[in-house]
């Protein structure tokens, strides 16, 4: 196991000269841009971790005059608030990443899908967008970015539900294939990337792929912005090199009484104290879109689980059976176990149900409900029952 320890990094929020970087990009071939991103080993920062370079390569390969870059700013995972900070501080780098991606795949149109609750940021973001449009026009880019606002549904962060939402439909995930690379928003080839991914791509182009891939581990290259919350004396946004263990993380951010860390939000994994040392934060261990929530011994893990399940029962789009009904069953099931209205062994049935949801749900939402459920129930069974 590669161990890197906890190292703070300043890349995402680093001030750069966008004009200089984008002028360089303007002269680069799409192939070269894609190769640099591939070489960097960057994986999507939204949580799923699909290699960004590969996504761009596939989208670039599709012969079609109209393509889209979509920036997924529908930051809805409970405990994640890093995209807000990024948009607040360095929106120009988000736009820059979109232009770079556009150049790479041959797209002239970009859409930022902004979380409905971030509507208050829009006036400022538009001002910055206007000056950014002027800048790239000077350089010679033909690229136009538009904003699209969500309405508060968690599911619209799922890429195909996001496309449906942009198109004016209900936010319901589509069947895949076809994948966004061939048929995304408006059924056109689309590269959809998280806010942080786009900024990271710009930084890779700025500093070169080597210096980036030097950071992190084999499976988790580079650094990542973490949203730290919960029982911690220092909540906030921190950019850290990937590859640290949960223990190292807790040493830095814990309050001395940390009993569990929820890595990756409601759809992520719960790591109990006994596994802190053996769990790496990253794709080789527990992946995260950035949400790190610490719980100390004053917290009831039943309440934590109940909270997550309540959230999912509410935020499932309701389209597919395993997710729509499964979330309700898990929620009602743990309630009944707690009240002693069903046998405690009913938890075993619920774990099997969570496994079915993982393999049979239509999209990532339903597939990941089981992560938190399983890890909390398995590690804190007594707190669920008593």
């Amino acid at each position, binding site marked *: 196991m590669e161990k890197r320890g906890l190292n703070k990094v300043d890349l995402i929020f680093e001030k750069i000269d966008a004009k200089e970087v984008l002028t360089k990009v303007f002269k680069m071939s799409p192939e070269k841009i894609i190769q640099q991103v591939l070489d960097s080993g960057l994986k999507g920062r939204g949580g799923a971790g699909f290699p960004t370079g590969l996504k761009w390569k596939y989208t670039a390969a599709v012969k079609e005059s109209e393509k889209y870059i979509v920036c997924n700013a529908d930051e809805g995972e409970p405990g994640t608030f890093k995209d807000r900070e990024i948009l607040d501080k360095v929106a120009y780098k988000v736009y820059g990443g979109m232009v770079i991606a556009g150049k790479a795949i041959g797209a002239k149109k970009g859409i930022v899908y902004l979380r409905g609750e971030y509507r208050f940021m829009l006036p400022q973001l538009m001002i910055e967008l206007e000056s950014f449009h002027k800048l790239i026009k000077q350089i010679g880019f033909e690229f136009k970015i538009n904003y699209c606002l969500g309405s508060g*549904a968690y*599911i619209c962060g799922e890429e195909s539900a996001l496309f449906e939402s942009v198109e004016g439909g*209900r*936010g*319901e995930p589509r*069947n895949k*294939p076809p994948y966004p690379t061939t048929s995304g928003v408006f059924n056109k080839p689309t590269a959809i990337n998280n806010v942080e991914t786009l900024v990271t791509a710009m930084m890779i182009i700025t500093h070169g792929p080597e210096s980036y891939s030097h950071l992190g581990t084999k499976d988790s290259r580079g650094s990542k912005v973490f949203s730290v919350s919960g029982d911690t004396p220092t909540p906030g946004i921190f950019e850290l090199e990937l590859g640290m263990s949960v223990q190292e993380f807790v040493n830095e951010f814990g309050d001395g009484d940390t009993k569990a860390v929820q890595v990756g939000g409601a759809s992520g994994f719960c790591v109990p104290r006994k596994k802190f040392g053996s769990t790496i934060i990253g794709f080789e261990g527990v992946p995260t879109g950035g949400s790190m929530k610490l719980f100390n011994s004053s917290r009831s893990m039943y309440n934590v689980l109940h909270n997550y399940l309540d959230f*999912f*029962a*509410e*935020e*499932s*789009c*309701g*389209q*597919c*059976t*395993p997710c*729509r*009904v*499964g*979330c*309700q*069953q898990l929620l*009602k*099931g743990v309630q*009944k176990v707690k009240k002693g209205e*069903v046998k405690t062994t009913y938890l075993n*049935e619920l774990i*099997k*149900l969570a496994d*079915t949801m*993982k*393999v*049979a*749900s*239509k999209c990532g939402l339903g*597939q990941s409900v089981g992560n938190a459920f399983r890890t909390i129930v398995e590690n804190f069974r007594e707190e669920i029952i008593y």
Partner: protein
Amino acid sequence: MISLSINHQKISVQPGTTVLDAARKLKINIPTLCNHPDLCVAGNCRVCVVEQTGARTLIAACAMPVAEGMDIHTNTLKVRNARKHIVELLLSEHRSDCTKCYKNQKCELQALANEFAFGDTIFLDLIEDHQYTIDRSSPSFMKDDSKCIHCQRCVRTCTELQYISAIAVANKGAHQKISSFHDRPMSHVVCTNCGQCVNRCPTGALVEKTYIDQVWDAIYDKEKHVVVQTAPAVRVALGEDLGYNPGERVTGKMVTALRQLGFDSILDTDFTADLTIMEEGTELLTRLKKILVDGDKKLSLPMFTSCSPGWIKFIEHKYPEFLSNLSTCKSPQQMFGALAKTFYASKMKLDPSKIVSVSIMPCTAKKYEADRPEMRSSGYKDIDFVLTTRELAVMIKQAGIDFRNLESSHYDSIMGDSTGAAVIFGATGGVMEAALRTAYEIVTGREVPFANLNITPVRGMEGVKEATIKIEGCTNDWKFLEGVELKVAIAHGLVNANKIMRQVRKGKSPYHFVEIMACPGGCIGGGGQPIPTSMEIRKNRMKAIYSEDEHMVLRKSHENPDVIAIYKEFLGNPNSHASHELLHTHYVERESY
């Protein structure tokens, strides 16, 4: 071609084929629920999940296109466990009052439960956590959300086939439901009552409103004389609910069964279908004359048929500015109703207040139509009860009739005779064909110039059909039509009706006469027909309709002796004052939301 393996059997199929269809080619059955051959792929029930070697998750067979080298397994432990869970989950949100349910033994969820979920219930009952009310507001159907399993077949039907979207998905998560505009009752939204959703609902969430008990009460009431009429499309589909294959005609047995059920007069809607042709054909020719010769600016073309009450409500809601283009003819059902309590009553010396008029229809919108306030020209409610083909099958079963071994018999006289032109009303293009057979002959004195009277260009399943017929050799009265190329169009399914109407609204419609039926395939594919209905089944029923026509001695409406007689004795001429009193109606502009 794409090669793949399913359960170790190799197969090559066209690109774009789904795993489900490939498996079906190998005769491997994969259970489905949200899938319907008439509708787009949804992939949301997940009952059809199968295992693909190397894939992280199970895949939905209905939504997954085949790929080279795929290795699919449809019956692994993983698949079986998931399927059982999925069916159990659906059952946990479904009010399973199966023994009392109208869809008992015809329910697709019940069939799946029988295969995958017998024995102890795994999951908790979720019904008690929700508040459900049954929407009984429509005269045609009922909507019971407590039985809904969210497959969205109804939603896709209403949008894709009917261009109405009376029902749509609302809310998310545990609160997701199939709802109407602002959650209004179905009687107060833009709904045509076509019943296509009812026909596709896999459970008892959407069912027709049944009037079986009321009809039994009337039959048992010695004071009452119960008249029954049967629509053309019923005879080619009723058998399906009684153990016959799609497309087997059961006309004679149906008549005998109706007699055994205790109806007092067994009559035929086909009679008034022939009458409709006389009235509507005359109306069309008169309209053409007024426009072409008299230069009447108040009238316009095309003229639309008015037999389909779903279509009538569609145009009333969506294109009310063209209501004057509709033929004023009532539908055959309502013409029949008006005559049953007037002409028939006097001929049979019956007190019309003692007549109960029942119609057997392939349609749920007919239930609504019978309730329209315009439909009381006899001084009574012209049609008292409308039953669907399915409800008649239920009555036949209730009465313990051995349908298969019944002798055939004939309709009663006076309003029981009909021609082949009337029976084809049941298929898309049929009204047009029947009208052309008669109108052409009125105008030229000769039969339509098609072999064996079969006007093939207006037949078939294409969504919008068109034909041009050159009128030549007109008799003196119709000289103004000499050389005119009569342009006609036929649309079925309201999504196709909408295509015609858009063209009309743009002022670019080239047609003189347009036949529109609300349901795909026409009445043979009506919302009240046996379930399932699919393209293949509709085609079989259509074949049966045309074969019924070919087997008739008389195949032109104007040759129907009962029709000739009724004009002589009662109505005078087509479009006479008496016909206008009884056989014609008017329409109402309705709100479009």
